[in-house]
C-alpha cells in the first residue's frame, strides 16, 4: 500500500457554544513512522487525537478531513468501525485505564481472534511480561508499569496499523518511564506500525520520534524532522520550550522562563497565538494569523518573522549553552534542622526506616525517590502533618521531639522556622478566601495584624506579583500564580527552611521555570534553605546543593549534587540517572 496510513487536514474542534479548542491541524503518518505531538496543557493535543478516534467527550464537535487510507474517519460511525482493528489509542493513566473488575487476561482476550492461554502468554511476552501468571491478576494487583504494558498488549490485540499513545509514561516512575517509551518505539518498529506519541516533554519526543509537531493554544506552530528541530528550532515558542526544560546534565544560573501563561485557543484567533508571550513579537504578529497548515513533511514554522529573528534565536541558544553555574557545598557548621532515626509505618507497611538527615542554613537539599519511596512522608512528618512512630527532630540543636506530639509552644516556634509548599496549585488555597483574607489570617494568628497592607504588599512583591492580587480569589488565578501565592503565604511567618513537596511538578514547563527561578532568587535574597522533595532529577540538578536518594524508606546515598548525579555510587542511583528521558540521544544531538 502506498501513501500515508493516516492523513489529517484542517482538523478543528469546537465546543457546543462555538468556542474553538483546536484549529486547522494537519499532518500525516506513514507506516513504520513515529511522530511526536508536543504541547503544554491547553494545547489541544489530546483533544485532537480523541477527535481522530471518534472519542470526543459529549458536547465537542470535530470538523475537517481525517482519512484512514480511503476511509473518512469523521463520518458518523466510521471511527467506531475501525477502532481497535486499524487504529487504536492508549491513555495516560495506567491506574484508570483497565477495567478494575477484569483480569489482565480477560482484558487482553477481548481483542484477540483466538483467545487461548498460549496466545495470551505470547502477547504478554511481546510487551516484556514473561510471567504468564500476570494474566490471572486484577489491575489493582499490578504495578503502574505492568498495567501500562498490559494496556499496550490489549491495544495491540487486534493488530492495528496505528497506535496513538497519550502521555504513556507521564504517570509512571522515572525508571519505568524509559522502559515504556523504549517498548513503544521498539514495538512500533517491529510491527511496522504508525505511532503517535502525545507528550508535554520535548526531550522525550526528541528521543523517541522521527518527526515532531509542536502545538500551542490549539494551533500547530512548528513541524519537522526531529533532527532539524532539535538542531535549530524555528519558532520562538519551540525555542522557549526547549530552553525552559531544566537540563539534567549541568546546572544553569537562571532557567529561561516564558513569561505569562498559555491562553485559551479561542482568545488568540486571527493572530499569532504566541504573540503575547514572545520577545520578538511585532505589530504584524498581533494582526495576522500565524498557524501552520498541512503541506508536506518539511521543517516548517508558523512564525511570521522566522527569517528576521533566526540569528537572534540561534544566538540565545548558544548563550544559554555556555551559561553554567556550580552547586556550592554549604553543608558546614551546625545544621539548621536535623532528623535522627525517623521511622514510620502505615498499617503493616514500613514506609520510613530510621531516616537521618540534616539541612544546613541556606542550602538546598534535594530529596529524590520514586513514588512510594517515602520522600513526601519525611517532609510531612517534619511539619507534623504525619505522626512519626519514632525519631527525633532538632531545630538549631534544640530538640522539637516529634512535631506532632511536641508541646504547642515548641511547635508554634518550629513552624515559624520551617514552612511548606504543596504540589497541587489548585487545592493549595482556600477557594472561598481572597488573597488578602488568606494573608491577614496568618499575620493575625502570628500576632502581627497588618492594617495598612504594607506587609501583604511586601509578600506579594517578593514573589513577583502586584498589590492588585490582594483582592483576587484563587479561581481567578492561573496555576503558576497560585503557586506564587502559596510561596508568599509560606514566607509570611519568616521561615528559614522551606519544604517544597513536588512544588513544581504539576506545572507546565514554561511556568515551572518561572517558579524555579523565583525559588532560586528567594534563596539568594533571604538565605532561605530548602528541602526540595521531587522525583525529577533535572529539577534537582538546577536547585539542589546536596542530594539524598531515597529507596523504599531508606536513604541510600547522600552527597553533593554533581557528584551523586555524575558519579553515582549506588546501583539504584545509577538506574535513576540513566533513566532520564532522552539523555543519551539528546547529548549526541548537541542540545541546549
Amino acid at each position, binding site marked *: 500500500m502506498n501513501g500515508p496510513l493516516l492523513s489529517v487536514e484542517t482538523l478543528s474542534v469546537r465546543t457546543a457554544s462555538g468556542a474553538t479548542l483546536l484549529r486547522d491541524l494537519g499532518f500525516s503518518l506513514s507506516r513504520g513512522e513515529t511522530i511526536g505531538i508536543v504541547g503544554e496543557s491547553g494545547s489541544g493535543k489530546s483533544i485532537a487525537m480523541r477527535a481522530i478516534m471518534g472519542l470526543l467527550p459529549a458536547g465537542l464537535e470535530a470538523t475537517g478531513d481525517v482519512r484512514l487510507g480511503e476511509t473518512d474517519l469523521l463520518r458518523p460511525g466510521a471511527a467506531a468501525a475501525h477502532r*481497535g482493528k486499524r487504529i*487504536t489509542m*492508549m491513555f495516560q*493513566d495506567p491506574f*484508570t485505564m483497565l*477495567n478494575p473488575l477484569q483480569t489482565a487476561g480477560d482484558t487482553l482476550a*477481548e481483542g484477540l481472534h483466538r483467545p487461548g492461554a498460549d496466545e495470551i502468554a505470547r502477547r504478554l511476552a511481546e510487551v516484556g511480561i514473561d510471567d504468564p501468571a500476570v494474566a490471572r491478576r486484577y489491575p*489493582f494487583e499490578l504495578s503502574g508499569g505492568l498495567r501500562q504494558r498490559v*494496556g499496550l498488549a490489549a*491495544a495491540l490485540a487486534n493488530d492495528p496499523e496505528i497506535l496513538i499513545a497519550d502521555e504513556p509514561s507521564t504517570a509512571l516512575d522515572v525508571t519505568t518511564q524509559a522502559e515504556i517509551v523504549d517498548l513503544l518505539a521498539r514495538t512500533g518498529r517491529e510491527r511496522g506500525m504508525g505511532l503517535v506519541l502525545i507528550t508535554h516533554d520535548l526531550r522525550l519526543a526528541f528521543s523517541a520520534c522521527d518527526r515532531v509537531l509542536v502545538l500551542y493554544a490549539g494551533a500547530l506552530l512548528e513541524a519537522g524532522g526531529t533532527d532539524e528541530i532539535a538542531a535549530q528550532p524555528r519558532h520562538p515558542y519551540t525555542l522557549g520550550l526547549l530552553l525552559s526544560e531544566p537540563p539534567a546534565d549541568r546546572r544553569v544560573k537562571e532557567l529561561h522562563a516564558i513569561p505569562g501563561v498559555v491562553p485559551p485557543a479561542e482568545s488568540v484567533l486571527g493572530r499569532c497565538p504566541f504573540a503575547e508571550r514572545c520577545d520578538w513579537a511585532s505589530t504584524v504578529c498581533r494582526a495576522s494569523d500565524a498557524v501552520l497548515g498541512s503541506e508536506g513533511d518539511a521543517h516548517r514554522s508558523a512564525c511570521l518573522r522566522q527569517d528576521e529573528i533566526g540569528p537572534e534565536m540561534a544566538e540565545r541558544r548558544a548563550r544559554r549553552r555556555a551559561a553554567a553555574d556550580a552547586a556550592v557545598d554549604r553543608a558546614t557548621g551546625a545544621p539548621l534542622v536535623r532528623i535522627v532515626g525517623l521511622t514510620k509505618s502505615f498499617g503493616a507497611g514500613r514506609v520510613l526506616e530510621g531516616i537521618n538527615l540534616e539541612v544546613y542554613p541556606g542550602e538546598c537539599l534535594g530529596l529524590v525517590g520514586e513514588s512510594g519511596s517515602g520522600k513526601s512522608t519525611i517532609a510531612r512528618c517534619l511539619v507534623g502533618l504525619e505522626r512519626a512512630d519514632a525519631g527525633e527532630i532538632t531545630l538549631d540543636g534544640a530538640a522539637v521531639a516529634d512535631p506532632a506530639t511536641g508541646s504547642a509552644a515548641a511547635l508554634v516556634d518550629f513552624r515559624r522556622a520551617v514552612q511548606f509548599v504543596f504540589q497541587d496549585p489548585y487545592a493549595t488555597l482556600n477557594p472561598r478566601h481572597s488573597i488578602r483574607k488568606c494573608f491577614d489570617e496568618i499575620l493575625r494568628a502570628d500576632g502581627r495584624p497588618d492594617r495598612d497592607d504594607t506587609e501583604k504588599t511586601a509578600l506579594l512583591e517578593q514573589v513577583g506579583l502586584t498589590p492588585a492580587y490582594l483582592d483576587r480569589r484563587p479561581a481567578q488565578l492561573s496555576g503558576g500564580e497560585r503557586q506564587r501565592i502559596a510561596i508568599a503565604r509560606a514566607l509570611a511567618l519568616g521561615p528559614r527552611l522551606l519544604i517544597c513537596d513536588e512544588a513544581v511538578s504539576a506545572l507546565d514547563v514554561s511556568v515551572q521555570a518561572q517558579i524555579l527561578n523565583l525559588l532560586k532568587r528567594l534563596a539568594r535574597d533571604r538565605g532561605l534553605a530548602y528541602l526540595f522533595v521531587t522525583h525529577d532529577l533535572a529539577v534537582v540538578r538546577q536547585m539542589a546543593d546536596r542530594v539524598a536518594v531515597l529507596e523504599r524508606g531508606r536513604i541510600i546515598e547522600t552527597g553533593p549534587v554533581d557528584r551523586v548525579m555524575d558519579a553515582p555510587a549506588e546501583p539504584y542511583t545509577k538506574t535513576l540517572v540513566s533513566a532520564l528521558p532522552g539523555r543519551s540521544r539528546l547529548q549526541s544531538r548537541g542540545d541546549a
Partner: protein
Amino acid sequence: MNRALIRYVALRLFTAIPLLLVISVFVFVLVHLAPGDAASALTGGRAISQEAMDALRAKYHLDEPMVVQYLRWLGDALTGDFGTSVQTRQPVVTAVLDRAPLSLWLTFYAAMIVLCAGVPLGLAAALRQGSRLDRSVVTLSVFGVSTPAFVSGLFLLYYLGFVAGLFPVFGAGRDGGFWTRAWHLTLPALALALSVLAIVVKITRAAVIEEMEKDYVAFARARGVPERRIMLSYLLRNAMVPVVTAASVIVVATMAGAIYVEITFALPGLGSLLVDAVRQRDIPVIQGATLFFSVFVILVNVATDILYVLIDPRIQFGKAAR
C-alpha cells in the same frame, strides 16, 4: 480464594453478634419504656387477677435486678421462648412463624419486580442521558422515592383494584395455589416495589453515568471492544458495586414498606401483626416481631456484603467488614 471467602463469611457473621446483642437490649428495654410499671406494660394495661399477675412477674423475673431480668429473658429468647401474646394467649413464636410466610412472599415478589425493572430502567436512562426517556425516568424516580408504600398502595387499590377491577382488593389468597397467591399479592407487591424501585433506578443511573466517563471505558472503545460487551462487562458490572453497597438501605426500605403495605391491603402478615401489637401494647409480640425483623435485616446485610466481595475483587476480605 474459597478459604478466604469462608473465613470472611465467618468473620462477618461474628461481627453481627454485637449488633444482635444491642438489638436484644433495645427490645428488652421496650418493656420498661412503656408508660407505667413493667407488669402493667406486659398486660397491656388490662386488669388481671392477682395469680395471673404473680405468674407474669415470675415469668419475667420482674422482682430481680434488671441485668438478671435481661439475661434470663435472653436465655429464654435463645431457646425460642418469647412468652405468649397478651391478646391472644398464643405463644409469640407461633404467631410470628404463622404470619412470616406471607411477609416473605410479599417481600421477595417485590424484590423481583425491583431488580427486573429497576436495573434495566436505570441503565436505559443513563445510556440515553438527556433524552425524553431519561427525563421521564428521572422525574418518576424522584417522585417514586417520595411516594411511601401506603400512598402508592391506596392509589393502586382504588384505581386498579376498585375502578378498573383488574385485581382483587381484599385477601391474600392464602387458600389458593401459587398463581392465586401471586394474583392477590400483585397490587401489594407493586405498591411495595415502587418506592424501592425508584431508589434502585436512581443509583443505577448515577452509577452507569459515572462509569461512562471512566478512562477504561474510553480505552475499551479505542480498542474496538463491542458496545454490547462494554455495556455488560464494563458499565453494568462496575455500576453494580454502588447498587450492592446500597443494598442495606434497599432492604430496610423494602421491609418498612412491607409493614405499611400489609396495613393498607389488610394482609395478615408480620407487619400487621407488629402494628396490631403496637396499637394494643402487646409487648411480648412486639419483642418477638421486632427481633425477627432485625435478624432478617442483619442476615440480608451479611449476604449483601458477601455479594459485594464476590463482585469486586479489590475488596480485601478482612477490610470489608466495615
